[in-house]
């Protein structure tokens, strides 16, 4: 299995091969590494690389686009590019101009909506208010424009990253 991974600001090519005895070989960016792997339980590995020990823990994020591993205490978000990988996804790129979709910055509940469809808004103007864990947060318009659509209603619970409104 060969895969490309974007992690810690680098793009790496990793080949994992099953050797004849059922074991693995790893070639990272063309360089073969001596790696000893032990899975303690699902998603928790002990890696020994040149004698150094690393505790690698999968975060097990529910969202596919948001994969991360911990090495010791450090969190590394990553993105796979292997077409065979289940988790490989392209992120939708927001175009710079054109309509912009307002997304929820945190999971929460919509407590107030400050505009109505058709309103003109300027960049930085509050569009609606989310509340979670006793903290209110005003979601602001990213640009000057018109409120094309409101996708949520007051009282509605939203997840992080959920679309809230479209500004044209």
């Amino acid at each position, binding site marked *: *299995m060969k895969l490309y*991974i974007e*992690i*810690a600001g*680098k793009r*790496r090519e*990793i080949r*994992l091969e099953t050797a004849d*005895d*059922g*074991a*693995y*070989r790893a070639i*990272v960016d063309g360089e*073969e*590494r001596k*790696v*000893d*792997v*032990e*899975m303690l*339980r*699902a*998603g928790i*590995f002990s*890696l020994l*690389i*040149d004698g150094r020990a*690393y505790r*690698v*823990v*999968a*975060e*097990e*994020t*529910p969202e596919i686009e948001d*994969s991360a*591993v*911990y*090495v010791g*205490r*450090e969190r*590394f978000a*990553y993105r*796979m590019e*292997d077409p*065979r*990988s*289940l*988790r490989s996804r392209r992120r939708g790129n927001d175009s710079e101009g054109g309509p912009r979709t307002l997304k929820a910055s*945190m*999971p*929460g*509940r919509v407590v107030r909506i400050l505009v109505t469809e058709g309103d003109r808004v300027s960049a930085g103007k509050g569009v609606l208010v989310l509340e*979670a*864990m*006793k*903290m209110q*947060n005003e979601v602001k318009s990213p640009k000057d424009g018109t409120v094309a659509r409101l996708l949520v209603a007051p009282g509605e619970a939203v997840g*992080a990253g959920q679309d809230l409104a479209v500004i044209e």
Partner: protein
Amino acid sequence: MVFQKILIANRGEIALRVERACRERGIATVAVYSDVDRAALHVLESDEAYRLGPAAASESYLRGDKILEIAKKSGADAIHPGYGFLSENADFAEACERAGVKFIGPSAKAMRALGSKTRARQAADAAGMPRTPGSTKGLVSLEEARQVAEKIGYPVMLKAAAGGGGKGMRVIAKPEELLAAFDTARSEAERAFGSDEVYLEKQIERPRHVEIQVLADEHGNCLYLGERECSVQRRHQKVIEEAPSAVVGPELRQRMGEAAVRLAQTAGYTNAGTVEFLLDKHENFYFLETNTRLQVEHPVTELVTGLDLVHLQIDVAEGKPLALRQEDIMLRGHAIECRVYAEDPENQFFPSPGKITRLLQPGGPGIREDCGVYEGWTVPMDYDPMLSKLIAYAPTREMAIARLLRALDEYVIGGIRCNLGLFRRILQDEGFSRAEIDTEYLDRLLNGGSAVMAERSPAVELAAALGAALLENSHSASASTGAGSTPSPDEQRAWKQAGRREAMR
């Protein structure tokens, strides 16, 4: 009397904390829960559990009437309110008294005397205790506010008398700011606390927040159990607490402690309570307010005194006289607590409720964790974001810091964002090591540029890349066998064998 059954009118780690104390005394526990807390730890570990209502606190944990009804129905002798929710609600304490269910805390009367900040300031004056200059009654007009501010000198703090947790508080640097602040603070106070009473006090320059734990029985005995320093705050919310304070010596401790005891006795206070002070750099201390309940940060006091505050609360509520005298209270070593929150320090500290998909907890020498969550638990969006309290004890402050950092290295919370990284940053900060902290310390640290990223060695990055690849590999493997994201025992065995053969070279 000895309680047979206690209802715990709270949730999260504090509910579990109280349940554990009850179990240690052979007292049965009654838990209450809202709809989103049915699977919470405090329900799992209780002896009985009853539903309160929907998620919103106003329909569940704040429903004193329902809670009292459950207490009576289940035959509870007493109610422990924890902190937050109904813990400082004098009406609820009074309703308990009337219903013949012991409220584990001060009397409604003492709570009223010390609960309002303005009345507490009057009590401080009566007890002859230093407080910040300013008004001791609600301001009736902008004109009065102007006069008071003029007299004590700017900058001043405008505060809600009924406030708490940093809400309804405003710093006013110059006279021109007073008008706008006065009106908005009043309406904000009215909305948040149902009272528009506000007052003014002088702002102390770079104060430390140092508080005294007091404990009073119902027979007139009152002790102080040393101080806690809680200067590391963000938006007036405590983030890290420690005991003892690095700058409080025995003499100052005694002066502050005796002042706090005097205040408690003046108000007829019973049970555990905290008297908060601001401390300036000249060792002057100023009464700030009283918390008429157990504090979040009580464990640091427990670790340095060797006492158990919840047991002592129950002793007192059972009517026992305190078995300790002031000279029995010895402080030893140093304890530091981190409040682990579901919030994202890298994204404006936004709340981060959701499912905890991974939880590895630290342990070993000197580590105590009072945790209210578990792997698989979905942190609801409806309450306070506190997940857990991680506390380290060690012989010295320096070792306690090192121990907390070690524990933080072991700790993994996955699936939601949390503030573990913030603690690392503070605990590794030189200013914090030197105990050069005050209530604005953390804001300065956070505004002083983004965290210096721990240097990531190429080796660690390689490990991360390989770890991620291995993980994807195991995901693909299990996907192809249709077994979901958890590898089957067979696959795990295959991995193990792979590891044993020390292959991958």
